[in-house]
């Protein structure tokens, strides 16, 4: 932990590997590590960024990251990519898209494959954030592809959740997953350059009216900005929006409330993980599970009754 705190990237990287490991002994070690990290955490601004592949997240993050570093911050980027195929490993090309940022001394970029157990690596992103904070990073950007479950999970562990979409004439809006508008604290219509300026304006208007139908908090209604990552001014504007929100929620005490609520979520997720872990590690219950699965498939027993049996078995341990 001392080494992580001193800013040693090697140790930080190794610690993240430990968190992501599927081995039980590593899990125990990471628990200790996260406990230690907690004391030193909480000081960063945690921003989740999502959007479909090709929306330009990486280019945006590179531009934003460079701006933040030039303003004197240390920036960590965690890239979660759930879109890899089930059978093989992942190809992680994030750094190829953040070439300039990856060269910066005050940047730390860590792409994570999803080939872990139980809900994938996204689950471990929360712990990774804490380690990055302990290592002194002022801003933690979490990049996630807008497919699967990861964006929902990520939105529940950040202070600000930014949703990026491509300019278009309306189809994009329909293609957005239900609920994503509720998760967003801010939205950006990206790649607004050249031919797309006009359609970006249309998209923006549609989003604004769609968002107006949602319940917003008394002091924050989700803004929609247009942005070109080739234009630093646009990116600074997005950051100003995030900063404004952060200041507001900090002052109102909502930031603390939000993080406290996230901690409850975290706890629940851990309980779930531990319980399922226990079920799977007990050979008696494991074979019972297999048996019951077959019975449920054959309609010999209701899922409800089967679940009751398993919980009972757990009680008897």
């Amino acid at each position: 932990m001392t080494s992580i705190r001193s800013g040693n990237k090697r140790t930080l990287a190794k610690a993240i590997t430990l968190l992501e490991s599927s081995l039980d002994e590593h899990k125990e070690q990471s628990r200790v590590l996260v406990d230690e990290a907690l004391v030193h955490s909480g000081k960063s601004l945690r921003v989740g960024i999502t959007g479909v592949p090709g929306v330009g997240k990486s280019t945006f993050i590179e531009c934003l990251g460079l701006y933040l570093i030039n303003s004197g911050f240390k920036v960590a980027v965690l890239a979660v990519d759930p879109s890899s195929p089930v059978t093989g490993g992942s190809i992680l090309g994030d750094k190829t898209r953040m070439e300039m940022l990856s060269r910066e001394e005050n940047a730390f970029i860590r792409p994570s494959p999803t080939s872990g157990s139980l809900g994938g690596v996204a689950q471990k992103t929360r712990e990774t954030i804490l380690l990055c904070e302990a290592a002194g990073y002022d801003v933690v950007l979490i990049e996630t592809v807008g497919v699967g479950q990861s964006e929902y999970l990520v939105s529940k562990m950040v202070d600000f959740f930014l949703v990026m979409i491509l300019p278009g004439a309306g189809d994009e809006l329909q293609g957005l997953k239900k609920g994503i508008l509720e998760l967003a604290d801010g939205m950006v219509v990206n790649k607004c350059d050249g031919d797309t300026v006009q359609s970006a304006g249309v998209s923006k208007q549609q989003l604004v009216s769609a968002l107006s139908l949602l319940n917003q908090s008394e002091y924050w209604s989700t803004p929609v900005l247009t942005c070109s990552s080739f234009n630093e001014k646009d990116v600074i504007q997005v950051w100003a929006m995030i900063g404004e929100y952060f200041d507001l929620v900090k002052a109102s005490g909502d930031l603390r409330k939000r993080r406290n609520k996230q901690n409850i979520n975290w706890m629940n997720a851990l309980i779930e993980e531990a319980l399922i872990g226990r079920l799977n590690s007990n050979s008696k219950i494991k074979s019972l599970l297999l048996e019951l699965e077959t019975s449920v498939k054959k309609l010999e027993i209701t899922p409800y009754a089967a679940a009751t049996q398993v919980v009972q078995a757990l009680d008897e341990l």
Partner: protein
Amino acid sequence: MESPKDKSKPPSLDDWKELAKVQMKGRSVDELVTESGEGILVKPLYTQSDVEDLSFRDSMPGLPPYIRGTQATMYAGRPWTIRQYAGFSTAEASNAFYKKTLSGGGQGVSVAFDLATHRGYDSDHPRVSGDVGKAGVAIDSVEDMKILFDEIPLDKISVSMTMNGAVLPVLAGYIVAAEEQGVPQENLSGTIQNDILKEFMVRNTYIYPPEPSMRIIGDIITYCSREMPRFNTISISGYHMQEAGADSALELAYTLADGKEYIRTALKAGLSIDDFAPRLSFFWGIGMNFYMEIAKMRAARMLWNNIVEEFQPNNPKSAILRTHCQTSGWSLSEQDPYNNVVRTTIEAMAAVFGGTQSLHTNALDEAIALPSEFAARIARNTQLIIQEETAITEVVDPWGGSYMMESLTQQIANKALELMEEIESAGGMAKAIETGLPKLRIEEAAAKKQARIDRGDEVIVGVNKYISTEEDEVEVLEIDNEQVRESQINRLKEIKATRNQKALDDVLNKLTACAESGEGNLLELTIEAMRLRATIGEVSDAMENVFGRYRAQTQTVTGVYGEAYQGDQDWMEIKKIIEGFIDREGRRPRILVCKMGQDGHDRGAKVVATAFADVGFDVDLSPMFSTPEEVARQAIENDVHIVGVSSLAGSHKSLVPELIKELKSLDAEEVVVIVGGVIPKQDYQQLLDYGVKCIFGPGTPIPKAAAEVLEIVTGVNSS
């Protein structure tokens, strides 16, 4: 038993089918139909019926649509130009080589530049320390150019320059060198490759983004059509696509689509089609698929004629596709290298039957390094033998009228038309490139092809079949990169100390302003700057200030390679080993595949990445053109088990030790370093001594490499 057929009638196709069936012991002849990489069905027999519907059957050489050749008499009148591409580290060494080639029967000079020059960096730039003088000659200013062409009469000898990124300063440097030799611009003849579009798809030796790059091309075409009427302003190249794994149809389609885009660019710059179209030339790669390559070249001339006709030229020369060809480097093997002489001969014959205007034949050691003198001589003699010892040159388009060849010509043309249609509907090639589609298509073809070779479905003698137990050591040309760099740096210092700095600064500022405003001609100003002894880097920077430096959008395909191995025993075995690894380590083996230095050939790295991911590794990719220091940092941050270095440009000896040093300094000695690509055998021991764990030459099947890497990582982690 006698056949009861009427003997006065000639035998029919059905008769043949019947007989064939007997000879195949009852199986259908349809089983002999094979599907080519292009997706064309090749039949065992072609007949009259295959050519009946073809529109071009009775065309003539030298006349539209030029299927049968660009000229009426072709090689019967005069054979093709023997043009061997070469560049050796320094201008002095290259100059000596060119003079020797010219006296030995070579008919033109073809210059290969080093990667630093390609990418617009001077030799003293910190990002290119490993690249100077590797894979070609290092050129920093007019002074180097003058040495390069010393005693070569530029009004008589045509010069071909493979340059795409730093086209402006290099072309201007050549012009000024000639000027100082006393040769005026209008007497210069030769070609500059200047084909930037394909750089964005393969090879990656660009500097600026597509849009300003196209403006540069417009300015060059405009200037040259006015001042240098004998100079070919662009050589639209399919060669590098084929080298990157594209099949012949992709190569044909994308190259012609590039050509169409250049026409549009020049027209937009205010020229008329006849001002420049006669000075456009093409460049094909010629691989081992003999018939298909000949068909490709014939189809290309027909398609190009049709494309140019749309723009309504008055000069018939505008619609004629003239081409240079080079035998395939991909087809060469490191194992059993003397086989390469035979391969090159067959490919050279395909190029000749296809009707090329000039030809480069690869040297047998080209899969490993720059050609040695011995290898270069054999390569040159291969062409001389075809020209002078055989009667091949005596007949124009000898394949004309062959049922098979005419039919294949039409089929590959059809395939290409389909692919070109897709590009057109994306708004032309420049737009299509932005979507990344063409690059992805080529990479997909490359992964498929690699899988076919690795599985032995496509045979390479001495590599995946009939493997020789004896190893032939081929002597390889050695380049002392440090020494070249030092002498270049000294010359740079000298130039900078003796030139008129004030005058130069003025011109460079004008150049920046011209880039910004779009007014004026960039080449014209660059010539002025080069006269005043500007360096390549200074000219490039003057424009980079406005244009910016382009960065590749890395996209990767997955699943393509693994698909070919569905159900394969060895493949499943490796997957199982990886499962075991996960159980022990808590995660998949993780490898960083990286490209260091200015080497932009990323096919190998991409294919390895996709194949390793398919078999179960987590694969990180480094940005292109990384330094060893940057790669070491990426390895640490991503916490990988292995760094795989892909090297094709000969800079492994300086960059790999540097990487290992950096890893050590970051306390990450246990990260396994492996190297793949073009590495001469004689360098193996040195790299191993530095701490490289294994080296994979061209032709290593990827599953074999994956298994070996796994073994090493397992060993490291358990110790």
